[in-house]
C-alpha cells in the first residue's frame, strides 16, 4: 500500500490532518477556561446561583473538549520525531527548549489542577477551587505563549546561529522567543480563541432562547457572549490588520500569495475580492478586483508600488490558491462576527436582546464560525510558510524522516480512521450536552459520574445539587 506515493506529501498531509483536528480544541479550551474562571469569580462575588449553574454546565463540556485536546496533543509532540526527524535534529536545539518550557510551565499546571477543578469543589473549599480554576486558565494561556513562540520562530527566525553539525543553535534566547512575528501571532490567536468560545457560548444560549426566551441561564450566557463578540471582534480585525502588516515586512511572499499578486504593480496594487488563482499560468482567473485598494490596505497609500510573485523564484512560491481562499474565508468570517456583535448591541439598546429571533438565528449560525476562521487562519500562515519549515532556511522536502511512503501512508490512514471514530463520538457527546439547557442545581462532572454509578435516585440528586450550591 502507498508504494510510489510521495512520502513528504503524505507526511505533510498527516501533519495538516492531525494538527487541524487538534487546534480546534486548544482554541476552545483557552477561551472556555477563562470563561469558567470568570463565571466562578462572579459566583463567589455575587453569590448568584445562575453563575454556578453555568459554571457546572460548561465545566462538563470543558472536560470532554479538554480530554480530546490532550490526546490529540500528545500525537503532535511525537510527530516531530516520527515524521520530521531531520527537522527535529536541526531545529530541535532551538524549538525543542521552547516546547519543553511549554510542558513545564503550562501542561503540568493545567493537568495538575484539572482534577481539582473538575472533581474537587467539595473537597478543597470554594477559594482553593477557584484558585485551581485560575491555574488551569492561566496554564492554557502560558501554553499559547510558548507554542506560538516556537511556531513564530519557524516563520520569522531570529537570534540563531548554525553549528558544525548543521543544527540551528540559539545565539540569543530573547531574540529567539520574542521573534518579530510572535507578539502579533500571540495576540491574534488568543483573541481568536476568546471569540471562538464566545460564538459557541452565544450559539448555545441562542439555541435555548429560541425555545424559551425566559430561561435565566441561557439569557446570562447569551448576553455575556454577545458582549464578547461586540467588543473583541473589532479588536481582532485591528489585530489581524497589524499582523498582516508585520507579515508584509518579514514574509512578503506570503502576502503576495494571499493577495493573488502574481504580477508586480508599480502604481498601486488592486484588491482581488474573488477569483481563481492559477499557479501554473501565474494569474488570477475570473478576478473581481478593486483597483489600488490592495496598496491602500497594505501600504496605506493608493499608488504605493507592490512587488508580486514574478520577483520570486518559482521554487519558493507557496501554493497560492490555498492561501488566497483560506485568507478570504478567515477575513470574511471576521467581518460577519463584527456584524453579529453590532446587531447584538442594537437589539440590546432597543431592549430586544432576548427576544430578537433574527439575532438568535444569526448567533446560532455563527456557532462554528470561530473554528472555521481559526482553521482558515492557520492554513493561511502555515501553508504560507511553504516550501520551508524554517522560513527561508530549511526546506520542507529536506526536513522529513528517512521513511518510505508505505510507513507514512499507513500511519496517516490509521489516524484518519481513529480520529473519525473518536471525534465523531466526541462531537455527538458535546452536542448532546449543549442541547440540554442549563437548569437550576446543575451539577459538575464530579458529582454526576459517581452519582450515576450508584444508580441515582432523585433524592440523592437533589441532595448533591443542594451541596453544590
Amino acid at each position, binding site marked *: 500500500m502507498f508504494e510510489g506515493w510521495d512520502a513528504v506529501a503524505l507526511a505533510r498531509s498527516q501533519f495538516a490532518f492531525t494538527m487541524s483536528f487538534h487546534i480546534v480544541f486548544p482554541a476552545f479550551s483557552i477561551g472556555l477556561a477563562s470563561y469558567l474562571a470568570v463565571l466562578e469569580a462572579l459566583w463567589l462575588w455575587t453569590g448568584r446561583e445562575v453563575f454556578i449553574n453555568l459554571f457546572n454546565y460548561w465545566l462538563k463540556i470543558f472536560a470532554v473538549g479538554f480530554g480530546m485536546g490532550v490526546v490529540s496533543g500528545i500525537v503532535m509532540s511525537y510527530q516531530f520525531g516520527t515524521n520530521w526527524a531531520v527537522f527535529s535534529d536541526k531545529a530541535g536545539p532551538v524549538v525543542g527548549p521552547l516546547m519543553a518550557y511549554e510542558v513545564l510551565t503550562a501542561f503540568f499546571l493545567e493537568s495538575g489542577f*484539572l482534577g481539582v477543578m473538575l472533581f*474537587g469543589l467539595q473537597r478543597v473549599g470554594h477559594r482553593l477551587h477557584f484558585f485551581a480554576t485560575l491555574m488551569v486558565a492561566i496554564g492554557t494561556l502560558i501554553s499559547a505563549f510558548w507554542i506560538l513562540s516556537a511556531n513564530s520562530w519557524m516563520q520569522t527566525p531570529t537570534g540563531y546561529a548554525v553549528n558544525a553539525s548543521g543544527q540551528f543553535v540559539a545565539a540569543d534566547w530573547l531574540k529567539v522567543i520574542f521573534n518579530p512575528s510572535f507578539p502579533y501571532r500571540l495576540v491574534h490567536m488568543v483573541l481568536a480563541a476568546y471569540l471562538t468560545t464566545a460564538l459557541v457560548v452565544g450559539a448555545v444560549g441562542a439555541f435555548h432562547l429560541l425555545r424559551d426566551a425566559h430561561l435565566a441561564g441561557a439569557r446570562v450566557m447569551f448576553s455575556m457572549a454577545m458582549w464578547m463578540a461586540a467588543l473583541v471582534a473589532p479588536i481582532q480585525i485591528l489585530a489581524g490588520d497589524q499582523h498582516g502588516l508585520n507579515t508584509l515586512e518579514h514574509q512578503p511572499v506570503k502576502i503576495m500569495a494571499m493577495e493573488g499578486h502574481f504580477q508586480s504593480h508599480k502604481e498601486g496594487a488592486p484588491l482581488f475580492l474573488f477569483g481563481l488563482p492559477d499557479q501554473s499560468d501565474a494569474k488570477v482567473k475570473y478576478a473581481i478586483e478593486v483597483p489600488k485598494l490592495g496598496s491602500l490596505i497594505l501600504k496605506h497609500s493608493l499608488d504605493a508600488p507592490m512587488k508580486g510573485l514574478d520577483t520570486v523564484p518559482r521554487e519558493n512560491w507557496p501554493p497560492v490558491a490555498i492561501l488566497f481562499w483560506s485568507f478570504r474565508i478567515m477575513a470574511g468570517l471576521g467581518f460577519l462576527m463584527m456584524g453579529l456583535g453590532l446587531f447584538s448591541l442594537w437589539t440590546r439598546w432597543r431592549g430586544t436582546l432576548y427576544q430578537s429571533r433574527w439575532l438568535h438565528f444569526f448567533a446560532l449560525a455563527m456557532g462554528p464560525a470561530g473554528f472555521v476562521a481559526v482553521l482558515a487562519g492557520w492554513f493561511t500562515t502555515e501553508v504560507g510558510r511553504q516550501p520551508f519549515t524554517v522560513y527561508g532556511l530549511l526546506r520542507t522536502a529536506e526536513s522529513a524522516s528517512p521513511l518510505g511512503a508505505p510507513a507514512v501512508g499507513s500511519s496517516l490512514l490509521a489516524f484518519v480512521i481513529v480520529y473519525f471514530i473518536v471525534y465523531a463520538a466526541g462531537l455527538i457527546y458535546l452536542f448532546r450536552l449543549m442541547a440540554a439547557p442549563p437548569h437550576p442545581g446543575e451539577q459538575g462532572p464530579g458529582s454526576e459520574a459517581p452519582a450515576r454509578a450508584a444508580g441515582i435516585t432523585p433524592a440523592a440528586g437533589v441532595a448533591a445539587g443542594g451541596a453544590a450550591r
Partner: protein
Amino acid sequence: MTGSIDIATIWAFIIAFAVFVYVVMDGFDLGLGILFPLFPEKSDRDVIMNSVAPVWDGNETWLVLGGGGMMAAFPLAYAVLMPALYTPMIAMLIGLIFRGVAFEFRWRATPGKRNRWDIAFAGGSLLATLAQGIALGAILQGVHVEGRHYGGGWWDWLTPFSILTGVALAVGYCLLGATWLVLKTEGALRERAYHLSWYLLFAMLGAIGAVSVATPFLNVQYTERWFAWPNVILTAPVPIAVAAVTALLLRALANKWDTQPFFLTLALFALSYAGLGISMYPYIVPQSITIWQAASPENSQVFMLFGVAVLIPLILGYTAWAYWVFRGKVRAGSGYH
C-alpha cells in the same frame, strides 16, 4: 567537550527521571485499563475509573515531557529513535487516544453503548503498554544508524526480544494496577485485586528474569557491563535488591497490607529501571550514539536547566497536593463526595 560532559549527563538523568516518573504514574493507570475485562461489574468499573480520573491527565504529561525534553536536550537521539520506533510509537499514540477519551466518553455514552468505551479503555491501555514495552526492547537491541539518520526499515523493531519486553511491561503495569486497587478500594473489589496481585507478582518476577537473561545475549557489551570484574561489584547489588524487595512484597501481600504492595512494586520497577540504565549508559542509542554525541548545544541545555531546577520541584509539589486531595478509598456511589 569537558564542559558539556557534565551537563549532558545531568540531562540524561533528567530525561531518565521524567520517563521513570511517567512509568510510575501512568503505569498503574494503564494497568487498570488492561485489567478492566477482569472486572465485568459496572459498579467496580466506575470505582476503578474514578480512582484515576482526577490524575490521569497529569500522569500522561510526563510522557510529553519525556518526548519534548528529548527533542530539546538530545535532538539527534530523538531524530534517530522516533523513525526507528515508528510503528510502536504510532500504535502507542492511538492506544492513548482511545483510553484517554474513554475517561469522559463513558459517562457521556448512553448506557447501552458505554461498553464500547470500556473496550476502548481496555484495548487502548493494552495497545499503548505493549507498544511502550516493545519500543524499550527495540532500543535495547540497538537500531541501524547511518550518519545522522535512522538507516533501517520500518519493521526492524519486531523481534522475539522486543515482544518479550512488551509482554513483560504489560505484566508489570498490571501488577501496579492491581496493587493500586488494593490501596484505593475496599470490599469485594479489593479482594479480587488482592488475589490478582499474587498471580501477577509471580508473572512479573518471571518477566524480570526472562528479560535479565535475554539482555546479555543481545550484545557482548551488556554481558561485560554486568559480569566483568570489577563491574560486578557495582552491578551485583541490583539483583540482590530485587530479591530483598520481592521478599518484602511477599510479606506485605501475605499480611494483606494496604499501601505497601503498591509502593514495593514501584521499588521493583525502580530497580529494573536502574538495571536498564546500567546496561545502556552512556549510550542513548545503544552501541551507536552516546549522550554526548546526541546532546544539544550547551546553551540549549543550560537554558532549560534553569526551568527544570525551579519548575520540577514545583510540579512535584502540586502533583502531590492533587493526589492528597483525592486520597483515601474510593467508594462506589459516593465517588469523591
